[in-house]
């Protein structure tokens, strides 16, 4: 398994453990369209990676991977919160769960060097109920062997 996949699994666990009531369990992106009846829903996906060798002859590759935590929430406001306000509460909790995380492996060794928050995209739709989609991006930095994405260094 690649170090990237291990980190994705660890992020999913970090977004699952101790989450407040109402925050949906994250699912790794599957390509299946959601139905409004399934909301709220949260997906996790990696979207972009840049790789840099520390020198032309180095055996190390430093990798910066963007992960998107995407929440889709429907809300009429009947409970006192609009769809966007519900989304914002989920987003606030994700920041605390992920920023600065290094994602320990089973032996307690960090998989990543750091996790930083990049930004958020808000989108809206309105059918029978208003829907808000919040795409929250984080950059995770880690290193592997330059010629082996499964070998952590």
């Amino acid at each position, binding site marked *: 398994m690649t170090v990237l996949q291990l980190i994705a699994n660890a992020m999913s666990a970090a977004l699952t453990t101790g989450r407040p009531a109402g925050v949906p369990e994250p699912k790794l992106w599957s*390509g299946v*369209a*959601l*139905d*409004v009846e399934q909301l709220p829903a949260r997906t996790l996906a990696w979207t972009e990676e840049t790789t840099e060798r520390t020198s032309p002859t180095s055996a190390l590759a430093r990798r910066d991977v963007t992960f998107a935590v995407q929440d*889709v929430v*429907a809300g*009429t*406001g*009947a409970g006192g919160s609009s769809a966007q306000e519900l989304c914002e509460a989920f987003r606030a909790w994700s920041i605390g769960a992920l920023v600065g995380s290094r994602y320990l492996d089973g032996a307690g060794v960090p998989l990543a060097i750091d996790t930083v928050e990049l930004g958020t995209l808000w*989108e809206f*739709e*309105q*059918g*029978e*109920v*208003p*829907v808000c*989609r919040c795409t929250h991006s984080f950059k995770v930095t880690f290193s592997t062997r330059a010629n082996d994405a499964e070998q952590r260094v």
Partner: protein
Amino acid sequence: MALGDDDLPGILEELGVEVTLGGASTHGVKRRFTEEMLRDSDAPELLSRSVVVTIKSGSLPALSSGAAITVDGIAYKVKRHMEEEHGTLTRINCVLVA
């Protein structure tokens, strides 16, 4: 014999549901259908429902965006409304918001 505008109230009364807004009532044809939303490139990311009710234009004088409207016993707000069919009919998009 062709149907004319004068036939509309009878047709809507027969086929439609009760629509109430601002103390006025009329009948309209309600459609609830699945719509693709939040599209990314070619793939719909969300399938949601939309509600549209079609009434005779002018039959609800207080019709405006954001107004409270009851369609077949369900309370909605008017998302938007548009005249169509040369102004004879008005299509109202409804949304469930508190």
